[in-house]
């Protein structure tokens, strides 16, 4: 699995496909967060911005290989494992970017009444919840479910929006816990666990669907 993660990540990094989603994320955080703002609310905004970014990143990981290269890798390492590794690597890079943003927001924001470590913990949990929910959206909006690029991007955008506003979405719960809470940053454990479950279910569905849909 390490070799697969390394291969997918190398493809992502060397092809500069990482640049566009990272710029989008930087722009979202820069617009939504001002230095000196209360930390919990800023962490919530940074986490919310990660939903479309993570969805996009996961979609890139699923589609960045030419078909023949994917065939060669599938034979060498297993079709299903290669697919799972692409999902894991995509979500992993999104979590990494979100964690960096959470650290930066905590360091520059105003800690009115909350301790830094407690806020950071809550921020990292919300980041993970949003990255995994976004990753689930990206998984469902890409091959093997949606193959036409136009529909895929439309599904990606609408799905990300829905993940942020729909009641019951782990991303919405995680963000609400930070933004709505009047200063006290409660760590959104439940939302994080729910997002993990959601990501696992969509990943399994995506792996299974390949045999029937592609």
């Amino acid at each position, binding site marked *: 699995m390490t070799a697969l993660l390394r*291969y997918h990540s190398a493809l992502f990094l060397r092809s500069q496909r990482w640049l566009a989603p990272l710029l989008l994320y930087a722009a979202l955080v820069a617009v939504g967060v001002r230095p000196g703002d209360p930390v919990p609310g800023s962490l919530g905004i940074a986490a919310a911005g990660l939903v479309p970014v993570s969805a996009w990143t996961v979609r890139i990981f699923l589609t960045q290989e030419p078909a023949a290269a994917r065939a060669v890798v599938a034979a*060498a390492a297993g079709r299903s494992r290669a697919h799972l590794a692409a999902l894991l690597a995509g979500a992993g890079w999104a979590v990494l970017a979100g964690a960096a943003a959470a650290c930066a927001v905590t360091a520059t924001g105003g800690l009115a009444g909350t301790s830094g470590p407690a806020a950071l913990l809550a921020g990292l949990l919300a980041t993970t919840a949003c990255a995994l929910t976004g990753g689930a959206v990206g998984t469902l909006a890409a091959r093997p479910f949606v193959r036409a690029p136009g529909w895929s991007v439309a599904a990606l955008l609408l799905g990300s929006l829905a993940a942020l506003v729909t009641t019951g979405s782990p991303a919405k719960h995680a963000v609400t816990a930070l933004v709505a809470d009047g200063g006290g940053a409660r760590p959104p454990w439940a939302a994080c666990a729910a997002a993990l479950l959601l990501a696992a279910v969509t990943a399994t569905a995506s792996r299974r669907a*390949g*045999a029937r849909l*592609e």
Partner: protein
Amino acid sequence: MSTIVGARGPVRLAGVGRRYGARGPWVLRGVDLELPEGRLVRVTGANGTGKSTLLRLVAGVDAPAEGRITGRPRGTAYVPERFPPALPFTALGHLVHLGRLQGLTTAVARTRATRWLERLGAGGYAGTALSELSKGSAQKVAVAQALLAEPGLLVLDEAWTGLDEAARAELDRAVRERVAAGATVLFVDHDPRRLAGEADTVLRVADGGVGPGPREQGTVPARVGAKAVEPGPVRVGTKTPDPDPARGGAKPSASAPVRIVASGTRPLPGVLPGGAAGEALGDGGGTLFRVGGADSDALLRVLLDASWHVHRVEAETGPATGGGRG
């Protein structure tokens, strides 16, 4: 480069069907097939009948929509007809990634990748970006990745296309090495002379099914003595002993004597399988071994283990001098 693949069961396809998309037409359906180890299997059929689909299923590139495929060995490699150079790696960098995917360490992958690129005549392109390679050189990279980790199952979908003469011969040689080492090699090639007469089994893909193909004229296969076991409706054409005399295969060719021409510098064991003795041919033509068919596999393994180069494996045409019953 000829590790003997450990004993394992055959790759088995049971009731396998494949269609593209949830409602697409079935390309293949109800395929029951057994591919034992140490077999060279040629897949024939007209364009668009599903040869590539069968190869992709066996290689594990595609999952069957119905049925099961079991017994695929840990080391499986696939060479597509066209390899995309649209990857942001150098030739060597890509091969190292693929080697690691097949369980090699980075150092071993690098060494073997360099060696295979040199064997295929692309040693000078190791540091070249894949996107700058010609079609033929990119195909050499695709072939090299498949041979790096000495796969137990090698699937070649017109892998020879685009290769130059020397590289095609080298791939032929690599295929023989893999088969002699106990690997299953499945291939499609539009050139009927490709490994002509060497395939142990010829399959024909037609009308959504897989059946026995035409028997190839020519030499007795390198792999003899292995029995084909094909349960189910699909009968697989094979050049090994056929239990059904009505199909014309009653002769026990497993013990028919075989001539093996090989050359090498390393010393061989004192006693060779089947009591074969080397006989030098003139003009640097190598060494001729005559051996009973039942021992030909063992002799080939000994030769390949000693890094000998096997030129030909053919049926004994004259009076038998080996231990065969002929």
